[in-house]
Structures are given as structure tokens and as C-alpha cells.
């Protein structure tokens, strides 16, 4: 093998290995989050039950999708990071306790921090706070083509909740859907 030929195939091997490595890392990162992240359950706020399952993905809206933060040094703007602290209540629900642009230094055992990105923010002067719409990366749930109606029938008028896995840095992943306390759709790892 001439050196030119060897360099060509070495280059190709490096490119293929790095690109497949990057894709593989994305998969591993996600699988790791889903399998080892802390599980929390968030109630889904119904937007319009009829349009919820149209198309090939579901848009999920949560109580924590809209947060209010006291005015701080850092002003929230579109695209900035926001950290939301949730507290587990006695009935097992997770409720919002605090939100702000800085990650809280310590959280209690019954608390979890979610990392989100601000979609819209506005300053409400009379209440002395910033109001923001936040995306946590758990708002859309892709479903196989054509299965939206089935899921819609299944949910009907029942209460829908989402099972979320959260890792230590606050990244969240959708793990499944819960209808009336029963897991109906659990995300397979592969």
C-alpha cells in the first residue's frame, strides 16, 4: 500500500469513526438519561384536546411552562437559560417553587432542578417580576405516523401526565405518558 493510499483510507476511517462516534454519543447520552435519570411526573395542561394528537407528534404543555421570576441582575431574554426548582408535595405531585437564571447552589432531597430555555420573556413592572415561557425539551412527543387518533381516544377526558427523567445537570427527557395514573406509553430504550 503506498503512503498516499494509506493516508486516504486512514482519513476515511477517522471521519467515519468520529461521525459515528458523535451519533453514538448522542444515543448513549439519551439512553443514559432515560435509564438513570430521576423520575418525576408532571401534569400536562390540556391545550386543545382535539388537536393534541393530530399529526405525528404531540405538543405537551405544563404548569411549569410559564414561570415568574423576581427581578434580578440578569434580565431574561429569548434563548437564555433558566433553572426551575420543583418540590415533591405530599400527594406525590411536583410543584414549582423557584425559577431564575442562575442554577441554585443546593437543593433538598425532595427537590429537582430542571434546565430550560426561555422562549418569550416580558417584564411585568407592577408585579416586579419577569414572566417567561420556557421550553425544557420535553414539549414534543413524536408518535408513529397514524397512531395519533388511537392515543386521542385513549386519553378522552382523562387526566394526562408525562413521565420525565431528569439528570443531575437538569437536562430532562420524556420517558412516557400516564393516563389517570396508569403508564400507557413507555419509551423503549432502543
Amino acid at each position, binding site marked *: 500500500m503506498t503512503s498516499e493510499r494509506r493516508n486516504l*483510507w486512514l482519513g476515511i476511517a477517522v*471521519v467515519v469513526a*468520529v461521525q459515528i462516534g458523535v*451519533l453514538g454519543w448522542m444515543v448513549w447520552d439519551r439512553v443514559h438519561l432515560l435509564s438513570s435519570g430521576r423520575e418525576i411526573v408532571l401534569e400536562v395542561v390540556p391545550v386543545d384536546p382535539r388537536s393534541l394528537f393530530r399529526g405525528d407528534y404531540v405538543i405537551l404543555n405544563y404548569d411549569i411552562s410559564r414561570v415568574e421570576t423576581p427581578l434580578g441582575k440578569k434580565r431574561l431574554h429569548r434563548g437564555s437559560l433558566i433553572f426551575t426548582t420543583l418540590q415533591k408535595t405530599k400527594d406525590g405531585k411536583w410543584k414549582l417553587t423557584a425559577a431564575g437564571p442562575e442554577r441554585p447552589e443546593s437543593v433538598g432531597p425532595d427537590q429537582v432542578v430542571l434546565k430550560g430555555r426561555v422562549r418569550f420573556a416580558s417584564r411585568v413592572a407592577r408585579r416586579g417580576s419577569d414572566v417567561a415561557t420556557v421550553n425544557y425539551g420535553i*414539549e*414534543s412527543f413524536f408518535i408513529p405516523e397514524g397512531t395519533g387518533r388511537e392515543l386521542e381516544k385513549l386519553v378522552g377526558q382523562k387526566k394526562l401526565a408525562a413521565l420525565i427523567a431528569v439528570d443531575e445537570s437538569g437536562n430532562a427527557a420524556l420517558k412516557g405518558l400516564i393516563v389517570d395514573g396508569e403508564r400507557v406509553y413507555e419509551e423503549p430504550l432502543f
Partner: protein
Amino acid sequence: MWSYRSKLDNDLPRWREAGWLTAEGEASIRKDVASHGRSLELAPALAIIGAVLIGFAAMSFIAANWDEMSRLARLALIFASLGTAYGIAGILFERGHPAFAHAAILAGVALFGAGIMLIAQIFHIDGHPPDAVLTWALGALGAGVVLGSNPALALAMLLMGLWSGWEMVESGVVHWPFLLGWGAVTAAFLWRWWVPGLHFAAVVLSIWIICLGYLLFDGHGHGVVVGVGLLIGAAGLALPSLGERWSAFSSPAVAYGMTIAFAGLFAVQFVEENVPLFGLILLAIAALTLVLAGIGFGLRTSSSAALWLGYGGFSLEVLALYFKTVGTLLGSSLFFLATGFIVIVLAAVAYRLHARMEAQP
């Protein structure tokens, strides 16, 4: 290349008849042009288009969220096709078909992007889409540098622009990290000394600079754009002093700089609201001076690109002024009279300057 050849076809017989060139000389010139000519060929162009189509096929396959296959099978399929594309590129290089090999590399880079989308879809990753575009751009840059592939580098530049544009649309603020990504791809273009790529880099950077005007100072940063454009133009004029290698970039840099400055001036006049009439007139004179200087520069350096950009800018400016002033204080006939007058004054100034330059020893 084609226009150069047809120009030679006209000129060579004339020069031979004038006695400046022997018949052998003409034959040698023709032979040299034929052997060095890098004319665009149909087959490689079709191969590149084919690669782009394969990329789109992969992406729409993923968009269909095909459920007949397990996730693992879909992942395996995308990994296998990625490896196959690069493998085919290697075989084509070995068999002496570099153009087709580059098309296969482009297909490989496209499949890498499709893989990112597939993984985002099957694992419901709904984070920050520009990050995915950046990952794709870096993959294209890596493949372009390691395998010496200009088409992959061009895709990397396109994706850097898309990444930054998306970030700016999402956040509404200037996305400075773009300069790092742009610089990295441009460095690769310079390293490979690929002139069309450098032009592409200049176009992407120009668009980014023009966007600054809409983002800086709450959307009133067009003055900065004018300043940056003029600086680039001035730098272009100074380039030949750096050496012969750089003098070829002088005229394009002037043309890009003037285009950026014009876009900024245009926005100050017609995008900004509540521009007073007197200010508008001064700005319009500045803009017309700029486009006429561009036309003059194009004529002096025989740069048809600068010439056409100048004509285009002139037409845009005059049309926009017309629509802005119709029905206002300035009647449209008065407007054309004024514009005609300004152009004639500028022509007189240009004539005087030219005469003075001629008079100098």
C-alpha cells in the same frame, strides 16, 4: 473559462494579423489554454446534485418516522449508509474519479446530518435545534479538512450560516460565536486556496454583517454596517501593497465592502422610520455617490461584478427613493429632476478628477 476562450478566439487572429504573434505562438497559446482550462463538466455537477438528492431522501425517510423498523435497525441503517458513502468515496478516489468521490463525501456528510435528525426524533430530543446544526457543520468541516473535500467545506459554511441565523432568529441578539465557526471554515478554504469557497465565505459574512444592523442598538445599528462596509472596502484598496498573492483579492474585497455599506445606507434610508426629509436627501446623495463610485471602480478595474453590483444598487436606490417620495413633499417629477442633477454633478466631479489624474506626470 468559456468566456475567456471565446475572447481569445476573437483576439488571437487579430493579434496575428497585426504581426504581434506568430502562427506557432497562437497554436501554443491555444494548446496551453486547452490543457490548463478547468472547464465545468456536466458529469461531476450531476454527481454533486445526485448526492444532495440522496441527502434529502435520507432526511425525508426520517421525517416519515417509519415504524416498520425498530429503532435499532434504523440506527444501524443510518450508520451503515454513512460508512458506505465514505467507503465509496475512497474507492472512487483510487479509481481516479475525484469529482465523483467528492460527491460521495458530500452524501456521507448529508447522511451524518440525517443521523443527527433521526436520533433527535427517536429519542424525542427537543432541545435547541441550532446546536444540532452546529454539530452537523463541525462534522462537515472535519470531513472537508481530513479528506480535502471542497464541496464538504462549502456545506460546512452553509451550515455555519444556518446555525447563526437560527440562533439570531431565536434570541433576537447578535450571535458572536458565528465568527469562530466562520473563521474556522474560511481558514480551511485559505489552506486549500479554493477561490470559489472564499467568495462563498465573503457572501456569508456580508449577509451576517448586514444582519448586525437589524440587531445592534435595538435594531438601529445600520450605521455600524456602513462603517464596517467602508472599512472592508478601504482594506481591499490596500490589499495589493501586501504582495502579489493578495492583489487578486483587492477588487472583490472592494465590491463586498461597498455592497455591505450600501445595504447599511439603504436600511438607514428606507427601513428606519421617521427619517427627516433633509437627512434622507443627504443619505440619498451618499448612497448614489457610493454606487457611482462602485460603477467607476468596476470600469477602472474591468470588474464586471463590481459594475453590475453598482448598476443594481443604483436601480434599487432610485426605485426605493421614488416609492418613498411619491405623494410626499417632493413630487416625483421634482425627485427625478433632483436625482438627474445630482448624477450630472457627480459625473462632472468624476471628469475633473480623471482629468487631474491624467495631467499628473
